[in-house]
């Protein structure tokens, strides 16, 4: 069954109507992990934000379906409650909000009736697994977190909320090798035949630790080329210019 179906998607920035996605197609099946690579400015982050329903972007054409349902008009929270999740390239810093209590509220909004203590212990356990210091759970959200701590916090959130579909936007940026490995390990642990992952990354580095089922290269707002995991190595070897150039030449 297809979990996500994106057909001929056109997206503009709401602020100035600049078109960023120009007829993008992408189908992700249950249990699959897809990686999207692409140069800066190709529209990778826009895609992640549009999938999650960021009101800064406007869909001007095409279709966007999740679990066979048109979600293009749903708000971010409605999408989240259907089982979508996004990790942010630059997670927001919000004073006065604590990760632990925020996650518990989010889970309750999604209908969880688990006892607070149970949820709290689960959050502790997930943080411990990722090597995220538990004192950060009770500090202001992302304030004063290092780059690595912010990304780990995103993955803790994913593991706690257990989405059906997770878009991870440059989860690997700003990480040292150890943090990269532990995050990759955690993403591998998250994968199962029931859920799907879309990894958005600039570099092939992360894909040394996570094996994708499919790799797509996004150039100038649409998928330029798709393939298996070997495509990632090709990109690394030839650069986006090389691939883009060979496509133009073909």
């Amino acid at each position, binding site marked *: 069954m297809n979990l996500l179906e994106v057909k001929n998607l056109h997206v503009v920035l709401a602020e100035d109507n600049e078109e960023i996605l120009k007829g993008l197609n992408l189908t992700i099946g249950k249990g699959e992990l897809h990686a999207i690579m692409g140069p800066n400015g190709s529209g990778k982050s826009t895609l992640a934000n549009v999938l999650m329903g960021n009101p800064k972007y406007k869909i001007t054409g095409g279709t966007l379906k999740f679990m066979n349902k048109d979600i293009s008009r749903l*708000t971010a929270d409605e999408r989240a409650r259907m089982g979508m999740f*996004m990790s*942010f390239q630059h997670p*927001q810093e919000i*004073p006065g909000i604590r990760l632990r209590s*925020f996650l518990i509220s989010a889970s309750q909004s999604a209908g969880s009736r688990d006892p607070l203590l149970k949820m709290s212990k689960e959050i502790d356990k997930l943080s411990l697994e990722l090597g995220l210091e538990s004192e950060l759970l009770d500090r202001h959200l992302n304030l004063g977190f290092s780059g690595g701590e912010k990304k780990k916090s995103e993955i803790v*959130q994913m593991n706690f909320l257990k989405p059906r579909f997770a878009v991870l936007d440059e989860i690997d940026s700003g990480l040292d090798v150890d943090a990269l490995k532990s995050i990759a390990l955690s993403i591998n642990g998250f994968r199962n035949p029931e859920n799907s992952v879309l990894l958005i990354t600039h570099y092939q580095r992360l894909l040394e630790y996570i094996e994708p089922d499919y790799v797509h290269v996004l150039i100038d707002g649409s998928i330029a080329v798709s393939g298996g995991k070997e495509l990632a190595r090709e990109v690394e070897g030839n650069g986006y210019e090389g691939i883009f150039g060979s496509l133009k030449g073909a």
Partner: protein
Amino acid sequence: MREEVFLDNTKFDFLSDTKYRFMSQRGFGESQIIDMSKRKSEPEWMLQKRLESLKAFNVSNKPGFGVSTESLDLSRIISYLDPDSDKHRSWDDVPQEIRETFEKLGIPEAERKSLAGVGAQFDSEIVYQNIRKELEELGVVFLDMETAVRKYPELVKRFFMKAVPPTDHRFAALHGAVWSGGSFVYIPKGVKVPLPLQAYFRMNVESSGQFEHTLIIADEGSDLQFIEGCSAPRFNDLNLHVGMVEIFVLKDAKVRYSTIQNWSKNTYNLNTKRAIVEEGGTIEWISGSLGSMKTMLYPTSVLKGRGARAEHLGITYAGPGQHMDTGSKVLHLAPDTSSLVDVRSISAGGGWAFYRGFLDISPRAMNSRSSVQCTALMIDNESRADTVPIIQVMNDAAEVGHEARIGRLGEDETFYLMSRGLSESEAKAMIVRGFMEPVSRQLPVEYAVELNRLIDMEMESSIG
């Protein structure tokens, strides 16, 4: 979480079917004042003070800043309403309708659980006042102002309207003329009151005014926490609240004064609060200004003695139709004094929050320190926020820090929280609660809970 002592906004909005012994004629004239003074069996000196205040009022000008008082027709306001109840020390003796009002507001319950004493005012008069026996035995005085005028005339003469004289401003003069009710507190030398004292003020009649006077004297080395709460049902016509709080913090004493103001949104709240702090003393003002249609309130700390300290923490919420002009004033008059001001405002649904601050470091206040932070958060494009902090430093051995910020509630933050499954109103309420947190965590816990609940409701209704 502890049991819900305080209730949501809709539950403040009920009317009690109460009998009154006396209601004065509308407006503010000499005859009303003489009548009132007679009914209170006041000594002549207090009547004279009232009449002097009336004179000051009659020649006073409108403030010339702050909220517009154009729609406030003083000739329509009933200045004095005497409910048909004596002052009691037991809730059982308070007439049923009035007792039920305060029960709905959770006051007797809070008293049993967490307070050292309670004064409850219904319209113009205190109907209940009590303090725990053991504190009374230590010499702590907690009385309604009228009784204090009779029992402690020397103390009242020495301190009453000495921090804020009637000539201070128009509404101070009006207050001096028709003040009624309020609390008198005296904490003897070295006595540390372990639990807060609380006063609760309730208005129950349309077009009425409430003018309670709170006078607190914390003698040397004493320690007191005082909590003030207020509410009224919503009427079509205006209500007026012109209260006054005077606090005298003597040498090395400490007073924390916390307020949650939740008047109904037809109320003009023109309040004056001032503390005079002697050597080594500390005053802390914790203010939540949520209700009323228009508010003017600038708690003031006069740091008179060497090493005196002031802390002003405030949250102001301006929702639809509200204009909240709030702020703080700190006067450093002596060396080694210090102050900290952290006030935050939230405006939503077309509300207007105006911060007005004044910090004065006088030539004598060598080696004084002050930090002033005012932050405004606007929830939407219709709302307004202004900050006007004035800082005057008259010596070069003072250390002053200042930060002012006005911001709009961020779409990126909201989207981030919504992507985890929180609705827009939940997400915004969470951000607003986070914004208030440094101040709200200083409030008594049940007030913090109440504040958070009010914010949740306001966010829900503003998003619709």
